[in-house]
């Protein structure tokens, strides 16, 4: 027990003294996950919006598929991205394996379905409410999409946060495609896994504390946003 107290004290010291190795890892994690969420948003939001307002034969199927993709096991995603990026894979020539870019790719694959599915849900619900009114105001179906996205902004921000939460906390995919190389592809989750197995609990704990802090912040923001939305819904009722 005393060991643990000591490790914890060391961990807190690492955080508070701004240990450069620790913070480099945190920074890389943030860079990778923020970038992944942004890219996933650029792909996922238009995709989700299109699924919400467009009508085509395989639409239901695509939606079911997208919802299923939300639950993809990260390890499998890691494996698939590994196969694609490996030397003999289709994108092997790009030599992306074991780089932060590879980790971003894996996280985009993980996060994009979440953002697309939540966007579709948001836009579709809003569209049911708005469609006739917008048509009356002379807005075409296509032109209504930006309106729906903007008026669904709170729910969409929640979707982005949910995506970020999944990306930053995920370990299985990034460890496969990133390789957990010191100073290159080590992010918070992979470092925690490695350092714990090596018995270096102080660094693992320090990262754990920061990761928990981020998770709580994200969850807190999400509930703040949904509270705001409920408040608006109530005032409308």
């Amino acid at each position, binding site marked *: 027990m005393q060991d643990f107290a000591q490790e914890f004290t060391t961990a807190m010291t690492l955080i508070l003294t701004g240990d450069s190795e620790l913070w480099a890892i945190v920074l890389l994690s943030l860079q990778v996950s923020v970038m992944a969420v942004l890219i996933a948003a650029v792909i996922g939001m238009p995709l989700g919006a299109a699924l919400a307002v467009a009508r085509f034969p395989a639409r239901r199927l695509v939606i079911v598929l997208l919802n299923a993709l939300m639950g993809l096991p990260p390890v499998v995603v890691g494996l698939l991205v590994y196969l694609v990026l490996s030397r003999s894979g289709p994108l092997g020539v790009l030599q992306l394996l074991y780089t932060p870019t590879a980790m971003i790719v894996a996280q985009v694959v993980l996060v994009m379905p979440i953002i697309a599915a939540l966007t579709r849900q948001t836009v579709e619900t809003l569209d049911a409410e708005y469609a*006739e009114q917008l*048509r*009356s*105001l002379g*807005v075409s179906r296509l032109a209504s999409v930006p*309106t729906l996205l903007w008026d669904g902004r709170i729910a969409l921000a929640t979707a982005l946060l949910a995506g970020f939460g999944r990306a930053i906390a995920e370990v299985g995919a990034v460890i496969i495609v990133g390789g957990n190389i010191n100073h290159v592809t080590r992010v918070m989750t992979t470092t925690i896994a490695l350092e714990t197995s090596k018995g270096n609990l102080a660094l693992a704990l320090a990262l754990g504390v920061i990761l928990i802090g981020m998770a709580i912040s994200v969850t807190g923001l999400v509930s703040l946003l949904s509270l705001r939305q409920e408040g608006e819904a109530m*005032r*409308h009722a």
Partner: protein
Amino acid sequence: MRDLPVLEMGQQPMIEAEGLRIGRNGERLLDLRYLALDGPGPTLIMGPNGAGKSLLLRCLHGLIAPDAGQVRQDGVPIGAESRARQGMVFQTPVLLRRSVAANLDYVLKRHRLTRARRRARIEALLAEGGLAGKGRQSARSLSGGEGQRLAILRALATEPDVLFLDEPTSALDPAATQDIEAMILRAARRGTRIVMVTHDIGQARRLGHDIVLMHQGRIAEHSLAHDFFDDPQSQAGRRFLAGSLVL
């Protein structure tokens, strides 16, 4: 039955509906031979719940394509183009999840006004609707009466030739109702043709130039207001005024 009380010979009615029919699962929802909205208006549409009043407004506004028949505005079949010259306030208006001013700006932007002109127009509209100073407030936080006034302002923002209103005061107190009636009359005076659904007989007497009474998807009577209230020509009209006409 005096079906076309206000039509001068040879004059083309502003809005004309012919042979409109809508059915769902074998049920007749709308079935009207001919309706001409001409003369100065306002035209007040009345009738029991489920008579097809909202459905009729949707058809006249071009939001629903009827199974048969045609609606014309100034002699031309309606479409997106004529809709741009019509405004509609729905029975449950949808205010955008934005500020009061942004709800108005949204419509003005589609008409490519400059920022300065839009701002001036918004100020004028807010003043017109008694909402001056509320421009920044979230539209969804307005009271029922204020929200209804905003919905009307938004429909009027582009100065439409025709304004359809679907029970705009049905949830409002007498004072709020008076405000809205005054707004509607001002719009009418500026040249907007008013077509309005109401359940309020007093309101129909105050505002109506002619009355369309609907019953079971049909037009039971279309008469000048004073004729309708003094001496309804149809059986349905007499029962409606006696309060015994139901679906």
